[in-house]
C-alpha cells in the first residue's frame, strides 16, 4: 500500500494553519503574483508569511509545497527565479513546477529542492513523465484528471517517480497548461498570469425573476434560472446557444466537482502516492471541512477499514459531483 499523503490547499496563512490543524500531510500555496496558477486578488502569501507558514507546518510535522506552476513569458523570468530563491531560503519541502525552464533553473540553482511536476505541465504519458524525471530530477508528478485508474496503474509501472492525483475539487478537464480560453476574452492568461476568469472581468447580473447571468469581459457565460444551482464563471463551464442547440448547452464541461471519495482504496492500490485536494481559492471553512473528512477517510483505509465519506456535496460546484475519467471516459 502506498503512503497516501494528503496534500491540501491554502490561499492564506490562516487557511494553511487550518489545513495543518485538520490533518494535512502537506499544504501547497503560492506567492501574491503571477508565479502560481491561483493569482487571485487578496489571495496568497508574502515571503514573510510563507516563512512563518513553513515554521508553523514543520513544527507540526507537515510539509509546505510551493506552487511555481505558471509559464514565464519571454524575457520575464526574474519573478520566477526570485520566487524559487525565496522558497529555497525559507525551507519549503518541494516546489511544484510546470515550465521546463523553471524546472531546469531550480534543478541547477537549488539542487537540494525537491521538484514536483504540476498538473499544469499536462504530462499524461510515461514518456513525458520520464523526460521530466531524467532531465530535471522530478520526484513526483501530479497527473491530469483525464486518466482512468487502470491507466494510472499502468503509468505507475513505467515511471521512476511518485504519483499525485486530485481527489476533490475542480473537475479540470481542459488540457491544463495549454488552455487559452480566458485569454481570448480578457487578454490575461491562465498559464502566464495565473488567472482563469480574473475577478476584475467577471460580472453577475441579477434579473427581476430571480435569474442570474454571469458575464466574463461583457460576454454572457451562463444564465441560471431562479432555482438553478450556479457554477464558476469560466468559459469552459459556460452554457451556450448554438443553431443546433437553441435551448443552450454546456459545450465543454458542466459546473460539477470531482469527488473521488469512493475510489480512494482503488487509487492507493493503483500506486498513487499522494491525494490532492483542489481549492486554494476556497475559504477556510472549505479547507477545514474537506481536509478533516479526507483525513479521517485515509486513516480508516490505512487501518484496513472501509471509509465512509459523504456530505461534501454542499461544497461542490453546481452542487454536483462526479468521478469523471477516473471511473469512465464516458461520464457525460
Amino acid at each position, binding site marked *: 500500500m502506498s503512503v497516501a499523503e494528503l496534500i491540501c490547499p491554502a490561499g*492564506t496563512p490562516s487557511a494553511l494553519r487550518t489545513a495543518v490543524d485538520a490533518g494535512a500531510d502537506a499544504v501547497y500555496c503560492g506567492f501574491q503574483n503571477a508565479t502560481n496558477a491561483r493569482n487571485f486578488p487578496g489571495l496568497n502569501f508574502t515571503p514573510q508569511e510563507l516563512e512563518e507558514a513553513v515554521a508553523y507546518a514543520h513544527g507540526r510535522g507537515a510539509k509546505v509545497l510551493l506552487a511555481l506552476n505558471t509559464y514565464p513569458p519571454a524575457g520575464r523570468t526574474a519573478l520566477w527565479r526570485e520566487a524559487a530563491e525565496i522558497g529555497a531560503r525559507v525551507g519549503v519541502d518541494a516546489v511544484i513546477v510546470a515550465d521546463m525552464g523553471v524546472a531546469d533553473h531550480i534543478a541547477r540553482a537549488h539542487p537540494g529542492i525537491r521538484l514536483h511536476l504540476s498538473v499544469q505541465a499536462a504530462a499524461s504519458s510515461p514518456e513525458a513523465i520520464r523526460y521530466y524525471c531524467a532531465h530535471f530530477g522530478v520526484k513526483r508528478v501530479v497527473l491530469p484528471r483525464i486518466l482512468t485508474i487502470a491507466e494510472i496503474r499502468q503509468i505507475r509501472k513505467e515511471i521512476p517517480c511518485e504519483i499525485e492525483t486530485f481527489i476533490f475539487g475542480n473537475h479540470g478537464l481542459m488540457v491544463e497548461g495549454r488552455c487559452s480560453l480566458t485569454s481570448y476574452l480578457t487578454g490575461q492568461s491562465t498559464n502566464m498570469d495565473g488567472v482563469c476568469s480574473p475577478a476584475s472581468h*467577471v460580472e453577475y447580473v441579477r434579473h427581476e425573476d430571480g435569474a442570474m447571468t454571469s458575464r466574463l469581459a461583457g460576454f454572457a457565460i451562463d444564465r441560471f434560472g431562479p432555482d438553478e444551482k*450556479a457554477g464558476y464563471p469560466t468559459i469552459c463551464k459556460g452554457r451556450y446557444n448554438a443553431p443546433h442547440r437553441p435551448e443552450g448547452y454546456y459545450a465543454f464541461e458542466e*459546473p460539477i466537482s470531482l469527488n473521488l471519495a469512493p475510489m480512494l482504496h482503488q487509487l492507493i492500490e493503483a500506486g498513487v502516492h499522494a491525494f490532492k485536494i483542489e481549492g486554494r481559492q476556497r475559504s477556510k471553512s472549505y479547507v477545514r471541512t474537506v481536509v478533516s473528512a479526507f483525513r479521517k477517510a485515509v486513516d480508516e483505509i490505512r487501518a484496513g477499514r472501509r471509509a465512509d465519506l459523504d456530505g461534501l456535496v454542499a461544497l*461542490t460546484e*453546481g452542487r454536483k459531483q462526479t468521478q469523471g475519467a477516473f471511473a469512465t471516459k464516458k461520464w457525460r
Partner: protein
Amino acid sequence: MSEIATRIEAGPPTPGGALSRVACLVAQPFLTRIVRRIAQRHPALFARLGAHCRTDYVIDPVELPFALHLRPDPERLILRATPRDRLPPAGASIRGRFLLLLELIDAEQDGDAAFFSRDLEIGGDTEAVVRLRNALDDVDGSIAEEAADMFGPPGRAILAQLRRRYRHVEPQGDGR
C-alpha cells in the same frame, strides 16, 4: 425545509421608513465601535484589500430592517447602518440571510458554496468582493465574537440571541 423555500427572496425587503431609520440610529454607535476595534486588531486586512479599501460595499442582510454601507478605508473607516432607500451607489454588493453573512465573516461557511447554492448574491465589482472575502478569511478566530466581547456579557448574549433567532431559517446542505 426545501432549498427553494430557504433561498433569499427575490424582492428587496424593508426599503426604508420610520422603523428602518430608528433601527439604524440604535445600531450605529455599536457598528462604529466594532469596525474601529476590528480594524485596530487586524491591520493585515487592509493589505489584502489593496486599492479596494476605498470601495463602497453594500452588505444587505435581507431580514434586517437596514443594510450596511462599508468603506474599509483605514484613514476613514465607515460601517454605517442605512435604510435601503438611502444607500449610496455600491461599488460592490453582497446580499444574503443575516446568519449566512455572519458565518461568512467568521469563515464558518464557504462563500463559493453559498454562491453555488444561490444563497448568496454578489453584484458590482467582483474583484472587490473577492478581495474582501479573502481578507476576512485570513483572520483567525471569530470577528463576530470579538465584536460581542467588546460589550461584555450583554454583547455575548445579544450575539447568541441573534444566532438563535436567525438559525431556524438558514438553509442546510441537502447531503445529496
